[in-house]
């Protein structure tokens, strides 16, 4: 299990009306080093429970004394981002996990093509600062909305003018995925972070062009979507637990003191995959294959279908 690291908030910066940047520094032990593309899980006490949200680190991996995250205020969500925006002040303590990287750069790539949608810019900030230092080739394509999700636009244009392409109302440009991918040479790898429809569009286009799946890398942290409440029977421990609509199955298990190994809590890393024997599952992860889904589920995001009770091998 990923141990908890207490950190304190040393700076809060309002990047856009919707996006706040938090700088975190060590409290007890020095911070662990990280590679570009890493994220941390931040624990947020909201309404008597702990919500765990993943945020990419956006500072350069050479800066070992601090972590920086940027949080977009999400409306109609479980309140984690709202808590960070409204309750957290400079000097406060937060509990986070050690950094983990599920979105690292491909070491064989000769050119890195980054595609960001809105707040999905954050892991690329770290990648670009690293690549600038390492002297490797890259370009950024950033689709955003002026005044809302165009975080760091000015800084990016200043630092990386020739490598950055902004798509917004202001620039009057639209991202043409097919044109962008069609012109890539054999040494290029593409990375996407942003809304699911953007990821799908790029993945589908790459497939049409004959690309190997391993040329396309993406990261999508979806907080578990609230759903319908259901019950789960734990076959091995002979218990029955209730999963409220605004709890993920993983959170409900943790609430009952049942530890399931987990890392990303967003349906991508595969750590929490759990076997089940009965019940119909609404699979919401990006990890399990169709075959695996008949016997396994990922409790961090997946739920029972309406009216079903799940029997888990726990």
């Amino acid at each position, binding site marked *: 299990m990923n141990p908890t690291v207490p950190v304190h908030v040393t700076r809060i910066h309002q990047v856009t009306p919707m996006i706040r940047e938090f700088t975190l520094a060590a409290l007890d032990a020095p911070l662990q080093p990280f590679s570009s593309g890493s994220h941390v899980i931040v624990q947020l006490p909201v309404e008597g429970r702990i919500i765990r949200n993943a945020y990419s680190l956006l500072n350069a991996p050479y800066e070992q004394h601090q972590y920086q995250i940027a949080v977009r205020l999400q409306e109609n969500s479980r309140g984690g981002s709202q808590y960070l925006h409204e309750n957290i002040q400079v000097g406060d303590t937060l509990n986070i996990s050690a950094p983990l990287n599920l979105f690292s750069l491909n070491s064989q790539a000769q050119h890195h093509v980054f595609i960001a949608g809105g707040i999905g810019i954050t892991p690329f900030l770290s990648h670009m600062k690293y690549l600038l230092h390492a002297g490797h080739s890259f370009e950024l394509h950033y689709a955003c909305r002026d005044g809302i999700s165009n975080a760091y636009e000015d800084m990016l244009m200043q630092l990386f003018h020739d490598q950055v392409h902004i798509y917004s109302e202001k620039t009057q440009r639209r991202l043409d995925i097919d044109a962008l991918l069609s012109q*890539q040479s054999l040494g290029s790898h593409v990375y996407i972070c942003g809304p699911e429809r953007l990821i799908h569009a790029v993945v589908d286009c790459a497939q049409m062009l004959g690309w190997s799946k391993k040329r396309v890398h993406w990261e999508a942290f979806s907080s578990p979507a609230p759903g319908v409440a259901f019950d789960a029977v734990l076959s091995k421990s002979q218990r029955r637990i209730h999963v409220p609509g605004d709890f993920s199955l993983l959170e409900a298990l943790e609430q009952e003191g049942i530890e399931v190994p987990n890392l990303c809590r967003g349906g991508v890393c595969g750590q929490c995959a759990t076997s089940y024997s009965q019940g119909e599952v609404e699979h919401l992860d990006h990890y399990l294959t169709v075959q695996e889904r008949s016997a396994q589920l990922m409790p961090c995001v997946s739920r029972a279908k309406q009216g079903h009770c799940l029997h888990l091998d726990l």
Partner: protein
Amino acid sequence: MMEAMHSTPRYQTVETLQWNAPKYVLVLQHAASAMTRQLTEMSKQHPQTVQLMLDSQQDPALAGLLHELETVLQQEKAGVRTVVCGDESFVWTVQQCLVGTGCLDEEISLIADSSSLQNPRKKVYCVHCGHTQHTVKDELCSCEQCQVELLIRSHFSERLGAYMGVCANAHQPMGALSV
């Protein structure tokens, strides 16, 4: 050859090629082989195909072919598929060149033409002295550099493009030089 293991290469066959990518490059070792003729025929159905053929089985010809291949691929865009057909020694030499230019495994089809060729060659890496050599032998060969009699294992290194050769007789650890 010993029993296949996890690292033993599994080659594609002419029949399982999909021909569904926008563009193909064919790299062929023997103009006269049945598989080459079959591939050439199939590729005529696909409008976007480039074909490179080895014109002699001598080493300078291979170096020339690899150079030509690199030149072709530098002009190509990501997504081009490569089909390589020849003996194992040939397909893995070409594969290393392809990987070096940025092609990924799924974008490369290797077809081992071992059945229709006379004396198909493969590469063997001597784990004792680190020498890589070509051989037509199946089970045993002698290391050209350290003379150890090698058992050709089915354990294969994709990085080296070679099967692992280990001392076949522990009582003769120096091969022919053992007394």
